[in-house]
């Protein structure tokens, strides 16, 4: 190449560079690299259609959970847990206590009308009482340790201080995790042993229509081994216990559920079912203890007074007498 050619080449190169430099800003404005990049607002708009949407991407670390960039659904769970759950819980527990207190003041203790007979009849055998108390004992601790999660920081924390409250909550959490299993066993046993006596029938309907003998004076229609109210308790325990077990296991083993959204869902189920069940159980405990004379013996010694049995389970007493399992050969149906 001659010197002139060199110069021309250089010059044309320079001109080209200049031309590019002049054109560059215009070019940059035309090619907007973010024209179709997602912005947070687009994602938040999409959430209006599907509030539980997550924004996931790709990550280069092994923990796939970290691939979720944003998951605002936690907001709704927070609102539930800090608001709705606390309200439902307070209404269920306090509401039931108010109802029971009012009932006690209004109706008083339900007596054995004919007075104790002195004779007893076996109502629950040792095994039945064992499974009842196994379930009941676990239930009470599960309920208290669970309610500590919901209400503890509002009620207990200010009283006992942070470190004591943490120690208590750790103990509560361990009890909750471990007693869940004997509780499940107890519910399963009660289901198997008592289901045959707990199939709903027309008699139960009549029993409810008559107010179960609790409201007003008159007698409830005679019941077999379990009356309508007791059947409701049975099914509340079986179905509620099953719901608590399933939802609880999903929370215990995060790997079983599809992710945190599922766990939020199971927590909501667990929370609502547990406080409803606590309300039902408060009523059950009331009527089985101070609410009714003679009732506790059924689960205490297993032997109930014959007159109590006749007043509340006339048909059952008749069946037992027929089978020769009751004292007193004569059958006097309590109406």
């Amino acid at each position, binding site marked *: 190449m001659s010197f002139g050619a060199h110069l021309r080449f250089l010059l044309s190169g320079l001109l080209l560079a200049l031309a590019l430099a002049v054109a560059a800003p215009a070019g*940059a*404005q035309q090619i*907007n*690299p*973010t*024209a*179709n*990049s*997602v*912005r*947070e*607002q687009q994602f*938040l708009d999409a959430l209006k259609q599907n509030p539980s949407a997550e*924004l*996931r*991407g*790709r*990550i*280069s*670390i092994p*923990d796939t*959970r*970290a*691939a*979720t*960039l*944003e*998951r*605002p*659904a*936690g*907001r709704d*769970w*927070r609102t539930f*847990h*800090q608001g709705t759950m606390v309200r439902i819980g307070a209404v269920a527990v306090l509401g039931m206590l108010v109802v029971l207190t009012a009932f006690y003041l209004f109706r008083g203790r339900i007596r054995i009308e004919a007075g104790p007979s002195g004779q007893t009849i076996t109502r629950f055998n040792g095994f039945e009482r064992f499974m009842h108390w196994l379930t009941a004992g676990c239930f009470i601790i599960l309920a208290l340790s669970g309610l*500590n*999660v*919901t209400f*503890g*920081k509002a009620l207990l*924390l200010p009283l006992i201080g*942070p*470190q004591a*409250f*943490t120690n208590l*909550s*750790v103990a509560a*959490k361990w009890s909750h*995790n471990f007693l869940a299993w004997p509780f499940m066993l107890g519910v399963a046993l009660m289901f198997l042993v008592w289901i045959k006596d707990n199939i709903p029938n027309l008699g139960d309907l009549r029993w409810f229509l008559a107010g179960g003998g609790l409201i007003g004076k008159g007698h409830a229609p005679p019941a077999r081994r379990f009356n309508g109210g007791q059947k409701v308790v049975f099914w509340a325990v079986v179905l509620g216990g099953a719901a608590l077990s399933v939802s609880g296991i999903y*929370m*215990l*083993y*995060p790997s079983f559920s599809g992710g*945190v959204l599922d*766990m*939020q869902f199971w*927590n909501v189920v667990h929370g609502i079912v547990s406080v409803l069940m606590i309300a039902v159980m408060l009523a059950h405990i009331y009527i089985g203890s101070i609410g009714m004379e003679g009732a506790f013996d059924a689960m205490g010694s297993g032997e109930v007074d014959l007159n109590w049995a006749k007043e509340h389970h006339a048909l059952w007493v008749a069946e037992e007498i027929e089978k020769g399992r009751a004292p007193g050969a004569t059958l006097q149906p309590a109406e």
Partner: protein
Amino acid sequence: MARMKFLCDADRCIECNACVTACKNENDVPWGINRRRVVTINDGKPGERSVSMACMHCTDAPCAAVCPVDCFYTTADAVVLHNKDLCIGCGYCFYACPFGAPQYPKLSNFGSRGKMDKCTYCAGGPEADLSPAEFQKYGSNRLAEGKLPLCAEMCSTKALLAGDGEIIAQIYKERVVKRGYGSGAWGWQTAYRETIAI
């Protein structure tokens, strides 16, 4: 006092993961836990962006609201921290957090998550500043030394910004105006209920 925030300029992030590594190293983060991560959205498609994400130190933090033992606290710099001595590892803050920040070391037994761990904004924990106990539980306390979180300080493209919210928003705004585009401050609307108007 400053209102500390994180801001990731996704148009600058090159997904080098140096922030992730720096964080792990600086804070001796336990095995299996990543206080910071880089997520690439629209991977391989036009408009692909990478965002470095950690705890955003939310305004009215959801984790703190749902904690059953109230183990969270907010520092004067608006950094959301928690007390591991009080944490019972229940997992509720993970349910509530919109960014999946809280994590738990796995313990052998069922139902026993370890004590929660998350980004501390390199601000340690409730122990005495710069004490060995603080380092062992929470990692370093750069804020006490007058420094910013290491992830943002060493970011090679300065995509990840840490500091007072108003100052980093201003830096971001100037960038967007100068270069003519910006894909927005990811997470800000969710964490702080505000966005950067440009």
